[in-house]
């Protein structure tokens, strides 16, 4: 089973890279860009086929290592 994990800075945290990319897009003429947030994307392949077990493990992995809960939020899909 494969987990696709998306990690982004929390909404309350200023993302200086996102702001810079937004400005760059504007300078290219894209005037309608409201916001840009950068993040990280992980693909974690697990041996298990049990979705419940996989979800539990992925959440643990996120809390223990993949995500810093002070500044980051995450979501994931299992396939």
């Amino acid at each position: 089973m494969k987990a696709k994990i998306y990690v982004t800075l929390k909404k309350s945290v200023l993302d200086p890279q996102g702001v810079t990319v937004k400005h760059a897009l504007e300078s290219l003429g894209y005037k309608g860009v409201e916001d840009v947030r950068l993040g990280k994307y992980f693909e974690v392949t697990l041996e298990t086929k049990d979705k419940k077990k996989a979800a539990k493990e992925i959440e643990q992995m996120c809390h223990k290592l993949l995500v810093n809960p002070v500044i980051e939020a995450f979501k994931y899909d299992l396939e």
Partner: protein
Amino acid sequence: MKFGVIRFPGSNCDQDCYHVPAAVLGEKAEYIWHKEEKIHHYDCIIVPGGFSYGDYLRTGAIARFSPVMKSVVEYAKGGGLVIGICNGFQILLESGLLPGAMLRNRTLKFVCKYVDIRVENVETPFTGELSHGDVLHIPVAHGEGNYYCDAQTLADLKKHKQIVFTYCDRFGKVTGEANPNGSLDNIAGICNRKGNVLGMMPHPERASETCMGSTDGRAIFESIRAAVKNGTFRMACT
């Protein structure tokens, strides 16, 4: 007294952090390899700067799980003195010994220059030889030194006098222009509530001898020595 300097793969300030206690202060110092599971008989542990584990994932995120960090956490929880400098500060944040996190510098640039920092709390074993409001001229060198925490944590830091250093101008005024990285409230260094763990982004070990252009950092090492020799923070660790 004896300093222990942790070495991770990618540490690059370890030799400076060894040199100042050993050669400038004339105290004992030893390197501690990150695979050590027990740390013995040190009066102060220095977690040096650099790029531990290549800064993979997040700065300090992998180093936090190295075998030695478990002992460092126990040592700190037992009251032992721990100072984390630059990447060392980031590791202490990731390990939960200090609150908050580091974001990419506001400018997105790696900042490598001398800055001025103001001493905000002299009631710590790291600042006892300094005076409140002293301005220290010390270099920074980092890409992620933009300290962040939520409002509640910031209020707690203030309430318990955990903000130890702030970025300021050369007259000691804490201004937006003096902030090199966008750090919340110009925070350059914080301690834990007990005061025995300090994290700071500036490098006092790079400013402890005249030939380095500033000797302002030396007072931090001298403060540690004084605190240990006075006995207040002497520590037999695990």
